[in-house]
């Protein structure tokens, strides 16, 4: 039974990761805790929901050959994105092309990866020899809409609010973000009402992954898209000039400025990437449960927990933190259940981890000084070894 909770934890964790990476990067680059980040998730989910409703993308039933074709198309799109991304990679060590051209390959890569993510679970259906395969064509469209919409919203927030508060320390921006959170929640409530909504997705076919666990179609999406986007983020952060500049700015904004890094450009793209990945997280959250105005605010504390666990400003920390918090939440349900408690207590565990982390090591697992200094450890071991050898050596 515990495996099942772990798998659920990974699925949930991928949502937290998608939220936490953006929150952490914005926290690092802009130096404030964005309490509206959860509502950016919600915004993404509702944008996708709108497209879902308007285009009624009930799955199109097609023959397996068509399904295979779509999968290939998805892979091709991902490949194209990947190729453009690689260009970025090589560019990273070279010239900075004008910022305008930079977004396009990223977008391609994102679309490609989404297509791939949506296609992969379909392969399973083909493998099972199901003659009529339902294709979630609209999921792609919804996803792209949500990413772009949330990304633009992020830039708008930066431009209209947070840019003006940047020299006044972390508190005014934080307070303004709380205000923004309430604006977003209630604009969404005013437009859509507070009823729970559901994406129109057929339940699809489960994937038996062994150990008695059958992943539902939605869980497959969550895990595949989650992992693929994490890989994408890794590529961007590790190999592109933008990603490195983002990490650099997150490390030390003033130094980035005196180094000649175009800090405004970095900040804008951090918002786009942060809000865009939050939007995907929102869609996955909506697919997993339901779409409602407080869905994002409801998981904000989990996202904060992930960010703080990993270390503020550290994208990799957010990744680690997201999965740890996701798994903790689900596994604690299993433990609570066994101990005879109500599983509704489970959020207390991630929150407690967060508070404990703030008290013991506020810089997070991957922030600040490394937890284990391998170099120093090696050095002291070899010193120790030398001393032992020295003891053994015949005295002069």
């Amino acid at each position, binding site marked *: 039974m515990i495996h099942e909770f772990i798998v659920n934890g990974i699925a949930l964790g991928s949502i937290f990761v998608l939220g936490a990476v953006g929150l952490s990067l914005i926290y690092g680059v802009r130096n404030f805790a964005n309490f509206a980040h959860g509502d950016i998730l919600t915004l993404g989910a509702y944008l996708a929901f709108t497209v879902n409703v308007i285009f009624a993308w009930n799955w199109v039933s097609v023959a397996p050959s068509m399904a295979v074709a779509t999968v290939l198309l998805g892979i091709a799109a991902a490949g194209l994105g990947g190729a453009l991304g690689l260009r970025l990679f090589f560019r*990273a*060590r*070279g*010239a*900075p092309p004008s910022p305008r051209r930079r977004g396009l390959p990223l977008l391609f890569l994102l679309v490609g990866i989404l297509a791939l993510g949506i296609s992969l679970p379909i392969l399973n259906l083909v493998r099972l020899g199901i003659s009529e395969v339902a294709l979630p064509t609209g999921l792609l469209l919804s996803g792209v809409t949500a990413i772009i919409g949330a990304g633009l919203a992020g830039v708008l927030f930066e431009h209209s609010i947070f840019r003006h508060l940047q020299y006044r320390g972390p508190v005014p921006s934080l307070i303004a973000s709380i205000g923004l959170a309430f604006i977003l929640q209630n604009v969404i409530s005013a437009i859509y009402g507070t009823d729970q909504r559901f994406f129109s997705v057929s339940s699809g076919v489960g994937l038996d992954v062994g150990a008695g666990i059958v992943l539902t179609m939605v869980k497959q999406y969550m895990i595949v898209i989650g992992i693929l986007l994490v890989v994408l983020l890794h590529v961007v952060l590790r190999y592109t*000039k933008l990603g*490195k*500049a983002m*990490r*650099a700015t*997150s*490390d*030390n904004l*003033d*130094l*980035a*400025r*005196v*180094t*000649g*890094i*175009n*800090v405004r450009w970095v900040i804008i793209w951090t918002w786009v990437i942060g809000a865009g990945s939050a939007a995907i997280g929102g869609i996955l959250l909506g697919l997993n449960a339901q779409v409602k105005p407080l869905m994002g605010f409801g998981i904000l504390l989990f996202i904060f927990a992930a960010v703080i666990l990993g270390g503020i*400003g*550290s994208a990799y920390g957010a990744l680690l933190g997201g999965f740890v918090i996701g798994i903790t939440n689900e596994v604690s349900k299993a433990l609570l259940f066994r101990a005879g408690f109500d599983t509704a207590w489970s959020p207390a565990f991630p929150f407690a981890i967060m508070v404990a982390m703030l008290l013991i090591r506020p810089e997070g697992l991957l922030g600040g*000084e*490394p937890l284990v*200094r391998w*170099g120093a450890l090696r050095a002291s071991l070899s010193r120790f070894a030398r001393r032992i050898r020295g003891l053994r050596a015949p005295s002069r």
Partner: protein
Amino acid sequence: MQPLLKAEAIHSGYGDVEIVHNVSVVVNKGELVTIIGPNGAGKSTLIKTIFGLLAPMAGRIWYQGRDVTGTEPDKLVRMGLSYVPQVDNVFPRLTVIENLEMGGFVREGDLTPRIDVVLEMFPSLKEKASVRSRNLSGGEKQMVALGKTLMLDPEVMLIDEPSAGLAPNLVEAVLEKIREINEAGTAIVIVEQNARKALSMAHRGYVLDMGETKYEGTGEDLLADPRVGRMYLGG
């Protein structure tokens, strides 16, 4: 000959507190200029003002014959002026190579050849190329900070107390490295607490105290001046 960099009658400070009063500094091409003086003399304030991090209350800054007063630091970087802060001068979570790449952010074209050149100047960094810079020693960090700035092959480097917080044997190595950089043709303005050593390697020096220029002259002259020696070099 027109000076490369000239700060003219600078008044500067924080908020409405004036710290630097009417100080002028001239740097010629290829020169090593040092600014010395006791704690709180306004040395760092002056250098930050020259680099556009603080707006001067009065005075002008000229670079290559152009008035650059109030120009943003990132523009100055593109023009060939660069600055090494006293502390926190490397990106801790970036590797050595990534730090160098960021140093070359505004550079056009492939960075690899330049990275190789810079690593050649700091051989000790070669084997640590993929180590995150927060895991480096203080001396190594200072080398990364210098190397990062050299990525653009600047005309002038403003270096704020490179020896701060370093062990004495490392101070020697870092200052030696700065002299090498200068000998390769880069003009350098260095703010130092380590006045004797700084003056001995500098072409010219300025002695700042209470935000005013007390003495200026060649490094040798200042070293030989008994008043400077008594007041600022510890006898």
